[in-house]
Protein backbone atom coordinates (compact mmCIF):
# COMPACT_ATOMS: atom_id res chain seq x y z
CA UNK A 1 0.00 0.00 0.00
CA UNK A 2 2.75 2.41 0.95
CA UNK A 3 4.70 1.38 -2.13
CA UNK A 4 1.69 2.09 -4.34
CA UNK A 5 1.18 5.55 -2.86
CA UNK A 6 4.90 6.27 -3.15
CA UNK A 7 4.88 5.19 -6.79
CA UNK A 8 1.97 7.47 -7.67
CA UNK A 9 3.61 10.36 -5.86
CA UNK A 10 6.82 9.77 -7.84
CA UNK A 11 4.87 9.32 -11.07
CA UNK A 12 3.10 12.65 -10.66
CA UNK A 13 6.16 14.55 -9.47
CA UNK A 14 8.46 13.25 -12.23
CA UNK A 15 6.01 14.12 -14.99
CA UNK A 16 5.09 17.48 -13.46
CA UNK A 17 8.69 18.57 -13.00
CA UNK A 18 9.54 17.39 -16.53
CA UNK A 19 6.71 19.49 -17.99
CA UNK A 20 7.71 22.45 -15.85
CA UNK A 21 11.31 22.04 -16.97
CA UNK A 22 10.36 22.10 -20.63
CA UNK A 23 8.06 25.11 -20.36
CA UNK A 24 10.15 27.50 -18.22
CA UNK A 25 11.42 30.58 -19.98
CA UNK A 26 14.56 31.00 -17.90
CA UNK A 27 17.15 28.24 -18.30
CA UNK A 28 18.25 28.28 -14.66
CA UNK A 29 14.69 27.52 -13.56
CA UNK A 30 14.64 24.60 -15.98
CA UNK A 31 17.85 23.25 -14.45
CA UNK A 32 16.35 23.45 -10.97
CA UNK A 33 13.23 21.59 -12.05
CA UNK A 34 15.50 19.02 -13.65
CA UNK A 35 17.25 18.61 -10.29
CA UNK A 36 13.85 17.94 -8.68
CA UNK A 37 13.12 15.37 -11.36
CA UNK A 38 16.46 13.60 -10.83
CA UNK A 39 15.81 13.29 -7.11
CA UNK A 40 12.44 11.71 -7.74
CA UNK A 41 13.87 9.33 -10.32
CA UNK A 42 16.40 8.25 -7.70
CA UNK A 43 13.45 7.54 -5.42
CA UNK A 44 11.93 5.44 -8.18
CA UNK A 45 15.16 3.44 -8.43
CA UNK A 46 15.03 2.77 -4.70
CA UNK A 47 11.46 1.55 -5.15
CA UNK A 48 12.76 -0.78 -7.89
CA UNK A 49 15.47 -2.15 -5.54
CA UNK A 50 18.31 -0.61 -7.53
CA UNK A 51 19.98 1.23 -4.67
CA UNK A 52 23.36 1.56 -6.35
CA UNK A 53 21.79 3.20 -9.38
CA UNK A 54 19.88 5.59 -7.12
CA UNK A 55 23.16 6.73 -5.59
CA UNK A 56 24.80 6.98 -9.01
CA UNK A 57 21.81 8.95 -10.30
CA UNK A 58 22.29 11.51 -7.54
CA UNK A 59 26.09 11.63 -7.79
CA UNK A 60 26.50 11.64 -11.57
CA UNK A 61 23.35 13.38 -12.80
CA UNK A 62 22.48 15.74 -9.98
CA UNK A 63 26.03 16.21 -8.77
CA UNK A 64 28.11 16.34 -11.93
CA UNK A 65 26.04 16.90 -15.06
CA UNK A 66 23.71 19.52 -13.63
CA UNK A 67 26.60 21.43 -12.10
CA UNK A 68 28.28 21.36 -15.50
CA UNK A 69 25.11 22.83 -17.04
CA UNK A 70 24.96 25.54 -14.40
CA UNK A 71 28.62 26.43 -14.95
CA UNK A 72 28.15 26.81 -18.69
CA UNK A 73 24.98 28.87 -18.16
CA UNK A 74 27.03 31.16 -15.93
CA UNK A 75 29.76 31.39 -18.57
CA UNK A 76 27.44 32.66 -21.28
CA UNK A 77 26.02 36.12 -20.92
CA UNK A 78 22.67 35.45 -19.30
CA UNK A 79 21.31 38.95 -19.86
CA UNK A 80 21.64 38.57 -23.58
CA UNK A 81 20.03 35.17 -23.38
CA UNK A 82 17.11 36.61 -21.46
CA UNK A 83 16.46 39.37 -23.97
CA UNK A 84 16.75 36.86 -26.76
CA UNK A 85 13.51 36.63 -28.66
CA UNK A 86 12.92 33.01 -28.08
CA UNK A 87 10.33 31.36 -30.24
CA UNK A 88 8.81 29.25 -27.53
CA UNK A 89 5.94 27.88 -29.54
CA UNK A 90 7.20 28.18 -33.09
CA UNK A 91 7.29 24.46 -33.71
CA UNK A 92 4.46 23.53 -31.39
CA UNK A 93 2.00 21.82 -33.79
CA UNK A 94 4.58 19.56 -35.38
CA UNK A 95 6.08 18.61 -32.03
CA UNK A 96 2.76 17.91 -30.38
CA UNK A 97 1.47 15.87 -33.31
CA UNK A 98 4.56 13.69 -33.57
CA UNK A 99 4.99 13.20 -29.81
CA UNK A 100 1.25 12.63 -29.38
CA UNK A 101 1.12 10.00 -32.11
CA UNK A 102 4.03 8.06 -30.63
CA UNK A 103 2.55 8.43 -27.15
CA UNK A 104 -0.85 7.16 -28.34
CA UNK A 105 0.81 4.15 -29.94
CA UNK A 106 2.70 3.16 -26.82
CA UNK A 107 -0.30 3.72 -24.56
CA UNK A 108 -2.47 1.59 -26.83
CA UNK A 109 0.03 -1.24 -26.75
CA UNK A 110 0.42 -0.98 -22.98
CA UNK A 111 -3.33 -1.00 -22.47
CA UNK A 112 -3.91 -3.99 -24.72
CA UNK A 113 -0.97 -6.27 -24.01
CA UNK A 114 0.53 -7.56 -20.83
CA UNK A 115 4.28 -7.30 -21.08
CA UNK A 116 5.10 -9.86 -18.46
CA UNK A 117 3.29 -13.02 -19.51
CA UNK A 118 5.09 -15.30 -17.13
CA UNK A 119 8.04 -14.26 -15.00
CA UNK A 120 11.21 -16.09 -16.01
CA UNK A 121 13.05 -18.19 -13.47
CA UNK A 122 15.46 -16.43 -11.23
CA UNK A 123 18.79 -17.00 -12.95
CA UNK A 124 21.11 -14.02 -12.81
CA UNK A 125 20.03 -12.65 -9.46
CA UNK A 126 22.32 -13.58 -6.61
CA UNK A 127 20.00 -13.29 -3.68
CA UNK A 128 22.60 -13.40 -0.93
CA UNK A 129 24.47 -10.39 -2.29
CA UNK A 130 23.47 -6.77 -1.93
CA UNK A 131 22.65 -4.79 -5.03
CA UNK A 132 26.07 -3.11 -5.53
CA UNK A 133 27.89 -6.42 -5.03
CA UNK A 134 25.68 -8.28 -7.50
CA UNK A 135 25.91 -5.42 -9.99
CA UNK A 136 29.70 -5.39 -9.66
CA UNK A 137 29.90 -9.11 -10.27
CA UNK A 138 27.86 -8.82 -13.46
CA UNK A 139 29.68 -5.68 -14.58
CA UNK A 140 33.20 -7.02 -14.12
CA UNK A 141 32.62 -10.47 -15.57
CA UNK A 142 29.91 -10.51 -18.21
CA UNK A 143 30.21 -6.86 -19.23
CA UNK A 144 33.92 -6.32 -18.77
CA UNK A 145 34.64 -5.35 -22.38
CA UNK A 146 31.78 -2.80 -22.62
CA UNK A 147 33.01 -1.40 -19.33
CA UNK A 148 36.45 -0.76 -20.83
CA UNK A 149 34.83 0.78 -23.91
CA UNK A 150 32.87 3.09 -21.60
CA UNK A 151 36.09 4.26 -19.99
CA UNK A 152 37.49 4.94 -23.44
CA UNK A 153 34.37 6.97 -24.32
CA UNK A 154 34.90 9.07 -21.21
CA UNK A 155 38.55 9.64 -22.09
CA UNK A 156 37.69 10.70 -25.65
CA UNK A 157 34.96 13.02 -24.35
CA UNK A 158 37.39 14.57 -21.88
CA UNK A 159 40.02 15.28 -24.51
CA UNK A 160 37.42 16.42 -27.03
CA UNK A 161 35.70 18.80 -24.64
CA UNK A 162 38.98 20.45 -23.66
CA UNK A 163 40.06 20.72 -27.29
CA UNK A 164 36.77 22.15 -28.55
CA UNK A 165 36.32 24.62 -25.71
CA UNK A 166 39.88 25.93 -25.69
CA UNK A 167 40.69 26.34 -29.35
CA UNK A 168 39.86 29.56 -31.14
CA UNK A 169 37.76 28.45 -34.08
Amino acid at each position, binding site marked *: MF*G*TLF*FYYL*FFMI*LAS*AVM*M*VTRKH*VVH*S*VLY*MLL*MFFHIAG*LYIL*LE*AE*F*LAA*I*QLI*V*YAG*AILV*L*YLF*VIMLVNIK*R*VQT*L*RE*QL*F*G*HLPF*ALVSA*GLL*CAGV*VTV*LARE*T*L*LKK*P*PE*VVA*RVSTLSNPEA*LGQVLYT*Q*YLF*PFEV*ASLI*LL*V*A*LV*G*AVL*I*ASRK*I
Partner: protein
Amino acid sequence: MTITLEHYILLGSLLFFVGMAGFLIRRNVFLMFMCIELMMNGVNICFVSFSHYYHNLSGQVFVLFVMTVAAAEAAVGLAIILTLYRNRETLNADEFRLMKH
Protein backbone atom coordinates in the same frame (compact mmCIF):
# COMPACT_ATOMS: atom_id res chain seq x y z
CA MET B 1 -3.88 -2.44 -6.69
CA THR B 2 -0.30 -3.46 -7.21
CA ILE B 3 2.15 -1.65 -9.40
CA THR B 4 2.92 -3.67 -12.51
CA LEU B 5 5.63 -3.39 -15.11
CA GLU B 6 3.26 -1.48 -17.39
CA HIS B 7 3.04 1.40 -14.92
CA TYR B 8 6.78 1.91 -15.04
CA ILE B 9 6.94 1.57 -18.82
CA LEU B 10 4.13 4.11 -19.09
CA LEU B 11 6.05 6.54 -16.88
CA GLY B 12 9.26 6.02 -18.84
CA SER B 13 7.59 6.48 -22.20
CA LEU B 14 5.66 9.57 -21.05
CA LEU B 15 8.93 11.05 -19.84
CA PHE B 16 10.48 10.25 -23.21
CA PHE B 17 7.63 11.98 -25.04
CA VAL B 18 7.83 15.07 -22.85
CA GLY B 19 11.51 15.26 -23.67
CA MET B 20 10.88 14.70 -27.35
CA ALA B 21 8.18 17.38 -27.55
CA GLY B 22 10.43 19.76 -25.63
CA PHE B 23 13.32 19.08 -27.97
CA LEU B 24 11.11 19.90 -30.95
CA ILE B 25 9.37 22.91 -29.40
CA ARG B 26 12.14 24.81 -27.65
CA ARG B 27 14.77 26.65 -29.64
CA ASN B 28 17.20 27.29 -26.81
CA VAL B 29 20.21 25.02 -27.27
CA PHE B 30 20.53 24.46 -23.53
CA LEU B 31 16.92 23.37 -23.25
CA MET B 32 17.33 21.05 -26.21
CA PHE B 33 20.29 19.38 -24.51
CA MET B 34 18.39 19.01 -21.27
CA CYS B 35 15.52 17.44 -23.19
CA ILE B 36 17.95 14.82 -24.48
CA GLU B 37 18.82 14.05 -20.85
CA LEU B 38 15.09 13.79 -20.17
CA MET B 39 14.67 11.21 -22.91
CA MET B 40 17.64 9.22 -21.60
CA ASN B 41 16.08 9.19 -18.15
CA GLY B 42 12.84 7.84 -19.58
CA VAL B 43 14.76 5.01 -21.20
CA ASN B 44 16.67 4.40 -17.96
CA ILE B 45 13.42 3.98 -16.03
CA CYS B 46 12.30 1.37 -18.55
CA PHE B 47 15.64 -0.46 -18.24
CA VAL B 48 15.56 -0.57 -14.46
CA SER B 49 11.94 -1.66 -14.31
CA PHE B 50 12.56 -4.48 -16.78
CA SER B 51 15.61 -5.45 -14.75
CA HIS B 52 13.50 -5.56 -11.59
CA TYR B 53 10.58 -7.50 -13.00
CA TYR B 54 12.66 -10.01 -14.96
CA HIS B 55 15.16 -10.54 -12.11
CA ASN B 56 18.06 -9.80 -14.41
CA LEU B 57 20.79 -7.33 -13.57
CA SER B 58 21.76 -6.61 -17.19
CA GLY B 59 19.27 -3.75 -17.33
CA GLN B 60 21.00 -1.97 -14.48
CA VAL B 61 24.38 -2.43 -16.16
CA PHE B 62 22.91 -0.87 -19.29
CA VAL B 63 21.74 2.10 -17.24
CA LEU B 64 25.32 2.57 -16.06
CA PHE B 65 26.48 2.69 -19.67
CA VAL B 66 23.70 5.12 -20.60
CA MET B 67 24.84 7.39 -17.78
CA THR B 68 28.42 7.20 -19.05
CA VAL B 69 27.34 8.23 -22.52
CA ALA B 70 25.15 10.99 -21.06
CA ALA B 71 28.09 12.41 -19.14
CA ALA B 72 30.36 12.30 -22.21
CA GLU B 73 27.64 13.85 -24.36
CA ALA B 74 27.05 16.64 -21.84
CA ALA B 75 30.76 17.48 -21.69
CA VAL B 76 31.28 17.58 -25.46
CA GLY B 77 27.92 19.21 -26.17
CA LEU B 78 28.42 21.99 -23.67
CA ALA B 79 31.88 22.66 -25.09
CA ILE B 80 30.31 22.95 -28.54
CA ILE B 81 27.63 25.30 -27.16
CA LEU B 82 30.33 27.48 -25.58
CA THR B 83 32.21 27.69 -28.87
CA LEU B 84 29.01 28.46 -30.76
CA TYR B 85 28.11 31.19 -28.30
CA ARG B 86 31.58 32.74 -28.56
CA ASN B 87 31.30 32.90 -32.33
CA ARG B 88 27.62 33.70 -32.87
CA GLU B 89 26.59 35.49 -29.65
CA THR B 90 23.27 33.65 -29.53
CA LEU B 91 21.76 30.49 -28.14
CA ASN B 92 18.83 30.22 -30.53
CA ALA B 93 19.07 27.04 -32.56
CA ASP B 94 17.24 28.62 -35.49
CA GLU B 95 20.11 31.06 -36.00
CA PHE B 96 22.71 28.34 -36.38
CA ARG B 97 22.11 27.75 -40.07
CA LEU B 98 25.58 27.76 -41.57
CA MET B 99 24.98 24.38 -43.21
CA LYS B 100 21.42 25.00 -44.29
CA HIS B 101 22.04 26.16 -47.85
